[in-house]
């Protein structure tokens, strides 16, 4: 057992009717790592996210967080234990300001409104949204919404942050910003799991990559190893990889 082992997924399986969304997936994440989960559409990445964070019930397998069994716990309990996540399509509270959104996350660890506000302002300064603190969340651009979602997650003071396609649909400039932000988050000692399509980001960020296809884990390794894996290239990444790294 690795002393810094943070998340340990053991044989996770999830079925929808007859469909195997996740089949016997195991992997581990150590503290301070950035892990990427990649794979074609429908490979079961989001399902896996949902299983780990308690939104779906696992049919088989276990999930351990810091050695504690969190299999099929309620999402809010898992959040309280230190796991924060974002959604594929950014989900913010639309009739609140940016600051209020972040404060909502902050209430997980603080009770007094004043403390929460300080925390939220600190987070916004960190994520670079401070200037837009009084904007209505609804009015933000896609990129800022994603940033806000990360801010809300950070306000929860998590140990593990799970980002579901936080870089999809961003312009190159916005993409750089997001990558930098993720680096900064890691520097704070927060472990990160990303589900990502943008290979440039995956290559640059990841310490470790796992590849899913049809609900199964087919390969895992360092980004370089995975990219070099012929099977992966041929079957699952194909031209997308070529496009990003000519």
């Amino acid at each position, binding site marked *: 057992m690795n002393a810094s082992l943070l998340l340990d997924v053991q044989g996770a399986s999830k079925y929808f009717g007859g469909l195997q969304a996740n089949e016997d997936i195991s992997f581990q994440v150590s503290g301070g790592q950035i892990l990427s989960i990649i794979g074609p559409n429908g490979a079961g990445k989001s399902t896996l996210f949902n299983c780990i*964070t*308690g*939104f779906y019930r696992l049919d088989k397998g276990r999930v351990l967080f810091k050695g504690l069994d969190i299999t099929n716990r*309620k*999402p*809010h*309990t898992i*959040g*309280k234990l230190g796991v*924060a*996540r974002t*959604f594929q399509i950014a*989900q*913010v*509270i*639309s*009739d*609140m300001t940016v600051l*209020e959104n972040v*404060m*909502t*996350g902050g*209430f*997980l660890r603080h*009770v007094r*409104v004043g403390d*929460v506000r300080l925390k939220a302002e600190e987070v916004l300064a960190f994520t670079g949204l401070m200037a837009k603190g*009084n904007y*209505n969340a609804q009015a933000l651009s896609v990129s800022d919404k994603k940033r806000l979602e990360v801010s*809300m*997650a950070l306000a*929860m003071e998590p140990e593990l942050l799970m980002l579901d396609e936080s870089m999809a649909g961003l312009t190159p400039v916005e993409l750089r910003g997001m990558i930098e932000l993720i680096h900064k988050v890691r520097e704070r000692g927060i472990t990160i799991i990303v589900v990502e399509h943008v290979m440039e980001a995956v290559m640059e960020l990841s310490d470790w990559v796992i590849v899913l296809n049809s609900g199964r884990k087919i390969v895992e390794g360092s980004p370089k190893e995975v990219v070099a894996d012929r099977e992966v290239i041929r079957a699952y990444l194909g031209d997308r990889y070529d496009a990003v790294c000519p």
Partner: protein
Amino acid sequence: MRNITGKQLIVGGAVLAVLIILPLLIPPFGQHVVILTLIFAMCGVAWNIMGGYAGMFSFGQAAFFGIGAYTSSFLLMTFNVSPWIGLVAGGILSSLMAAAIGYPCSKLRGHYFAIASIAFAEIVRIFFNNWEMVGAAEGLTIPMRQESLANFTFNSSKLPYCYIILAFVLFALAVCRLVSTSKMGYYFRAIKESHEVAQVLGVNVVRYRLYAIMISAFLTSMAGTFYAQYILYIDPASVMVLAISVQIVLVAMLGGANTVLGPVVGAAILIPLSEYSRAWLGYKGTGFDMIIYGVLITAISMYRPNGVWGALAGVVRREK
């Protein structure tokens, strides 16, 4: 919006002073309208906590209103318990009922919740309508007792009723403000946005929804107790009907859900309008007052969908 400024305090105090002095100057029917307005303002504020903030559009508030009215009246008539104690007892009972129905409904949202709340309130009404111990369909006639604050009874003047319900409304507003500016209020709004978002943020959705329903039920029940002590006659057909629930939603919506003061403004528009149009036009039997009422509701929903007060609040927010 968070901190009350000195200026606000002064103006707020002025409004309050008007509310305190005004009942002294107007005839009893006017006082009645003030009282009725404040009863529905209170219910609207209570509805707002679960509907406006937590997004549970309840069309069944009449059940809590009725339970409040019945609990205090029953305790008073059977065990001679002071209505003031009945007020609290009714509130607690309503909250428990709210929890009992809120729990199984914890997955229901939007229209499904609305219809489930109607179903719940109708079941409660039918149950009371057949329950011999509380007078069944005949209802309860609360005996006129010695006039005193302790007895919650005033025969010679309506003024004490005015001030009591005014105090109730202030209490409800204080609760609402406290809730809306605290952790609970933030969590309610997260739940309103989406259960998933709230859960991710570590919100125990089921529990916080129950909090919202229970607080709302308690306040609504207080208004119900007041109604019983004021009108002195209750039956399921007058305190537990859908019309009351709808009136409460209208007050909150037309004033502006999701704002602390919205329901009060809504009640201040809707109730005097319906009372005076009935008093002035109703005797002709043409139903003209109700036609106006229908048109008004439609028009406000169309042109001020955030409510009269909500629209103003929205303007202010944008200007900031």
